[in-house]
């Protein structure tokens, strides 16, 4: 199968998956038995308020019609109007997405360092004390819930040794230094959570590659160990870690919900929690759809990258 056809079929599958996600979200939120308006407003709501909400959400129309209207508008870029604020969802979302994107980029940069450096140290010193110590540390961190790690880092660096702000509240008036300082703790939390998975995978695959014949050959040719490691071993060892990174992006989307909440960072995650607390169904639908789209896109990119990096995969499947 040629790369172009493979690419095409993957994109098609991703689109299909997202279509199914939209049906699932719609089914869960609007087509479950029981009255949607009562579920949003609670059982003490007046008949008039319920009626207003029903017409606002077009609940008098059949579910099928509502679904196609929603998904049609969504595809044309009209995300609808938030019930709680009355503002267009696109306007509410845009700044929050931008903030989370900034946070994620910083977290991702830190993640790369935090994942690569320990894994390389472990693989080079495999079986030695350093290897075991790092293994134990990653296992301990793996077992730490993200909300607990965030709270611990907040305690350490904002309460016990107050060098960083505890609340990552930023606004348009913040200077870029303030913004960066505010983002450090949430970004480091996210990076650690992602790195612990990657370290374990990367260590194992790097050790496997270092044992392979072509690495032996490179060593026997008299290449410097550093060149062998970075030019020959690492690029091949990274492919399995790519899948973990895609998985991690999925985690990142979930993780930002917790981490942004702990540090009160005004991003996409806190918006989702607010929307859920206010039972703002149109806003919930839009945020969940977007997070699923990001996840699907990340997996698509990882799949394609894996194929491009390792030609062997082009023929299998």
């Amino acid at each position, binding site marked *: 199968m040629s790369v172009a056809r493979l690419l095409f079929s993957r994109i098609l599958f991703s689109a*299909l*998956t*997202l279509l*199914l*996600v939209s*049906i*699932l*979200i719609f089914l*869960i*939120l609007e087509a*479950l038995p*029981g009255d949607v308006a*009562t*579920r949003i407003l*609670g*059982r003490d709501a007046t008949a008039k308020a319920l009626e207003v909400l029903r017409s606002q959400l077009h609940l008098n129309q059949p579910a099928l019609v509502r679904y196609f209207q929603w998904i049609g508008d969504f595809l044309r870029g009209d995300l609808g109007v938030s019930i709680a604020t009355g503002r267009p969802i696109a306007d509410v979302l845009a700044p929050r997405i931008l903030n989370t994107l900034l946070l994620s980029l910083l977290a991702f940069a830190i993640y790369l360092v935090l994942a690569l450096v320990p894994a390389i140290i472990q693989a080079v010193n495999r*079986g030695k004390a350093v290897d*075991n110590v790092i*293994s*134990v540390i990653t*296992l*301990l961190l*793996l*077992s*730490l*819930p*993200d*909300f*607990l790690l965030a*709270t*611990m880092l*907040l*305690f350490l660096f904002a*309460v016990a040794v107050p060098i960083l702000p505890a609340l990552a509240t930023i606004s348009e008036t913040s200077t870029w230094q303030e913004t960066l300082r505010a983002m450090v703790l949430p970004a480091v939390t996210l990076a650690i959570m992602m790195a612990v*998975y990657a370290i*374990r*995978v990367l260590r194992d695959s790097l050790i496997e590659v270092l044992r392979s014949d072509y690495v032996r050959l490179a060593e026997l040719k008299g290449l410097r160990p550093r060149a062998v490691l970075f030019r020959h071993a690492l690029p091949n060892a990274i492919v399995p870690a790519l899948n*973990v990174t895609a*998985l991690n992006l*999925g*985690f990142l*989307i*979930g993780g930002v*919900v*917790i981490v942004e*909440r*702990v540090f009160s960072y005004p991003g996409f995650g806190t918006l*989702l*929690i607010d929307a*859920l*607390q206010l*039972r703002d169904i149109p806003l*919930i639908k839009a*945020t*969940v759809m977007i*997070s*699923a789209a990001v*996840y*699907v896109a990340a*997996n698509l990119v990882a799949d394609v990258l894996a194929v491009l990096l390792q030609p062997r995969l082009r023929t299998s499947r």
Partner: protein
Amino acid sequence: MTMTTSSLPSRFAWLDKGFWQTTPGPFRVGAIILIAHVLFAIAGAFWTPYGFAEMGAGLPLSGASLQHPMGLDQIGRDVFSRFMYGAHIVLLLSFAGTVLGMVAGTTLGLLSGYIGGWFDEITQRIVEAMISIPFLALALVMIIAAGPALAGEPVLIVFVVALVYAPRIARIARAAAMEIATREYVAVAELRGEGTWSIVFREILLNAANVLLVEFSLRLSYAPILIGALGFLGFGIRPPTPEWGLMISENRNLLIASPVTVFGPGLGLASLVIGFNLFTDGLSRMLGQRSVAGA
């Protein structure tokens, strides 16, 4: 981590005398931690030093002492008593949710992998779609969709954990079923005229037991974190029932006044998950499986 490599021949050598000696180190440490947690949880279900919702058990925020090893919260409740009472809630919810998710996911995955064809195709697309929604978002959306009547009920949490897990477990079960379906004994069973259900549950399920056992252990490890996260965000068990995630979130604004009220429950939760993770790690080595990290 100690790299004890064991050469365990048979699958269920539980009854062997020297079994314990042959288990990998992580398995032993994990098992001991888990047994301690279970004993603590059983004790806490029947007796705690103070009532878990009893206010004025001592001076609020007075920090850790012999009477109150985890201090007191804002309204003078003994945090250790709450922590102790919460232990069985965390364990029961995790276990019930994971078991339910295993049953649903395994059934779906094995059938899908064995039957194949359009049934498999449709199931896989739905599974794929469910996995594409970040699990925390999916869990929260389901809690909202359940409405105010069910909010905070243990039943809801169990179902949410099961529904988040089921598609992920189904994917693993399907892969195992597809591999086992090509074996000779399955072909023989087909020739004997056994029905689909009989083949799936008598031949395939038993032979996929190792994979599924590790998967179960892995999912169980993560369940306390998921349940804790829901509690932490305010969508979990209804207060004043002391679920650990909820306690951490309640006491978080006491972090300056009395950090022990946060780190006590935090340590409990972390040690439980560490126990589960070590146990899983050892179990997967014993069963010759590779445990796959990741949500």
